[in-house]
């Protein structure tokens, strides 16, 4: 979607390696979110940010960390990837914490 990009789009990595996914926005929105989507679970929130250097945990944050040093970038890091973290990861942005979200196109991560 225009205004939000995720990179990479696809990644295969080995168990135990660190992985960083990037979300970049050009909308100057305050709020940014990382979700994972798995069959049967819908979307589950990993971490979110409500401003530069302001982040908080979601419902499935174990094994993940985030950083937001600039308004436009929100990084998701898997410190030591595990097979259970194989998933599709979506970034989303919003102007407020209760209005409609704009989603990126997703990153398909496979941990082998």
């Amino acid at each position: 979607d225009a205004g939000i990009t995720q990179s990479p789009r696809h990644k295969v990595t080995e168990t135990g390696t660190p992985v960083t996914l990037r979300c970049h926005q050009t909308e100057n929105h305050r709020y940014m979110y990382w979700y994972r989507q798995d069959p049967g679970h819908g979307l589950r929130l990993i971490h979110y940010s409500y401003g530069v250097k302001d982040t908080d945990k979601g419902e499935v944050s174990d094994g993940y960390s985030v950083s937001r040093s600039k308004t436009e970038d929100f990084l998701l890091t898997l410190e030591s990837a595990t097979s259970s973290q194989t998933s599709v990861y979506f970034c989303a942005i919003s102007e407020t914490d209760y209005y409609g979200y704009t989603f990126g196109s997703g990153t398909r991560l496979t941990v082998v």
Partner: protein
Amino acid sequence: SQQGEEDPQALSIQEGENATMNCSYKTSINNLQWYRQNSGRGLVHLILIRSNEREKHSGRLRVTLDTSKKSSSLLITASRAADTASYFCATPPDNDMRFGAGTRLTVKP
């Protein structure tokens, strides 16, 4: 845990028919939102209904909200093959948005 739960999990209809999907939620909300996801893509925001609204329209979409039953419905009228997608309801408790597992809609030409 998921805040919104969609029903049915899957729905298959013919082009031109109407499609109705339901969503139930657990806690009080200030609004409820519906999203569409085409295969392999991110979610797209369709419509938002506030807690003090009972019905809202957008093109071929009609959303209702019953806060006493903690439920919402999404009606797509005169469906098209291009409406084939998964549909999610979402509610914003506190600072994040909780999504259900979605309804997979298939519209056959």
